């Protein structure tokens, strides 16, 4: 597993002491842990996608301004549009539902009429 240290200006080598063995093994387990969590999440996703509203799927927050909402939806769209081409079929399925939810929220709240 790689550890990369970032500073403001970009790629700089770390001057920290090497991390301890316990930290290293915890870091090395992160990928497997993430994969397992993601597998579990995608297994549940099909049910959640059917039961959650478009607003819930898009994780809208109370008090969002129009511009915040627009930016939030654009970020979501970018993520899930890319995911629609994922090699993982479950993620592609999730992406299709999310893209529809994003559009639904946009049409409902931003009310951008198409001529």
């Amino acid at each position, binding site marked *: *597993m*790689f*550890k*990369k*240290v*970032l*500073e*403001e200006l970009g*790629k700089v*080598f*770390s001057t920290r002491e*090497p*991390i301890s*063995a316990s*930290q*290293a*093994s915890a*870091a*090395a387990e*992160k*990928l497997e842990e*993430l994969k397992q969590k*993601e597998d579990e999440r995608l297994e549940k996703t099909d049910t959640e996608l059917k039961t959650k509203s478009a607003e819930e799927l898009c994780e809208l927050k109370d008090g969002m301004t129009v511009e915040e909402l627009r930016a939030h*939806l*654009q970020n979501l*769209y*970018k*993520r899930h*549009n*890319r*995911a*629609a*081409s*994922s*090699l*993982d079929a479950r*993620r592609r399925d999730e992406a*299709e539902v999310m*893209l*529809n939810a*994003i*559009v*639904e929220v*946009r*049409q409902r709240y931003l009310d*951008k009429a*198409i*001529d």
Partner: protein
Amino acid sequence: MAQYVGIDLGTTTSGLAILRDDGHPEIVPNGDGERLTPSVVYFDRHEGVKLVGSAARDGGDPDRTVHCIKKRMDDPNYILEFDGKRWTPPEISALVLSKLRRECSKICGDVDEVVITVPALFNELARKSTVAAARMAGMKVRRLVNEPTAAALYYAHRFGIMGRILVYDLGGGTLDVTILEVFGEEIRILLSEGARHLGGSDFDEVVLEIYAKQFRDERGAELYNDERQRRRALKAGEDAKKMLSKLKQVTDTIGNDQDGIARVNLTRELFEEAVGRLMMRTEMLVEQALAGADLTPKDVDHVVLVGGSTRIPRVRQMLERVFGFAPRSCGNVDECVALGAALFAKYGAQVNEVCNHGYGTLAIIENVETGEEAFQNSIVIPKNTPIPCAESQTYITSEADERFIEVEITQGEDSDPRYVDIVGKITLEVPPGRPAGCEVTVTYSYDENQRVRALVLDKESGRSQDVAISYKGEGVLSDAQIEDMATYIQGLRIE
């Protein structure tokens, strides 16, 4: 022999164009006299012939007919079986390419080397599959070029347009939006974005749903009960969609053998409302492209239309609303990609392209200022970097006594590792007894055909390993399999 040949291997139709001696590109019709060949293949059971094109689309057992195989070119596990033989997406695409090559060569001469176009969003596997399909059809691929890039070259050639151009390419199966700059004879791509399952065939499915509902309401039964009936109804929907580009209302009768026929009515307003969400997705892709290039609509000089689906009036209205001026159409919007590909065969060196995907690796990123650590996708080559290119990133190992350095190669632009694909892995053996914190450099290089190689170098030991990204799956063919299949296909009867 035809010297400069371009092929648009499309989701719903494909075309072949050559560059004439006068420097203008021209579509070469197929043996059926059609300028565009439907990308449909029928596997006949009785005579062993493979029908490609209109004959495949319009007749035959729908269970033995393959449509839109291009949508599967990036699926490593997609296999179809006919008469005990398994077919992968590139092999089926090779049949389409074979028909084009065999029949068009009777008019323009032998076709040995071609430029083939692909959607901007096609990943590494889909591009490799396209090159493999061409090889199996007996052609060498001079270059792969993105469809919007080819179309832009055609527009620049035909209309002499210069400046900053947004290409809106809405074809049968995908939407590509590319922003580029044309100055004199040079074309510089700034950015490409794409969306799958967003094309004319998806609009056809929407019309099919409308028809199915109207039939159900009138006849109390389902419009189709098998694939043949569904295909017929889908074709009727497609025809209605096309007519609605010219008329405000279409009336038709539709039905099946069991439940009779019903009168269906489709207005342009109803159609546009039904496809409204799909249209909004296209608008959001345009916004994403502008944002990615750090541009506003005012910064774009021209918007050009590519793909038959841009004939839908709502497309033009949307783009005019966004940009404040009408988009430009060359008229033959279905053909401009193939025509542009033929131009690219000669003038491709003047086109400066960009990476279609970002590539990176998984790492724990630590913020030195806050001390926070996050497990992230660390991008080495950002998307839209001009190509060819090579970029490196240096990391330190996180474990002591590592014997193997493992680098996961990711494809995608998201920093969240859940939303990128792991497309490869390099395992580099290193000497024992090393502490954590050893420097490892990961270098990715991107060639002009959008192919990626990865190199991992361990600074301490000097050991390195490099790989070309490869995919595993039932549908992924080895070089030997491609050669065998090329021999097999070239012996087939393809009509």
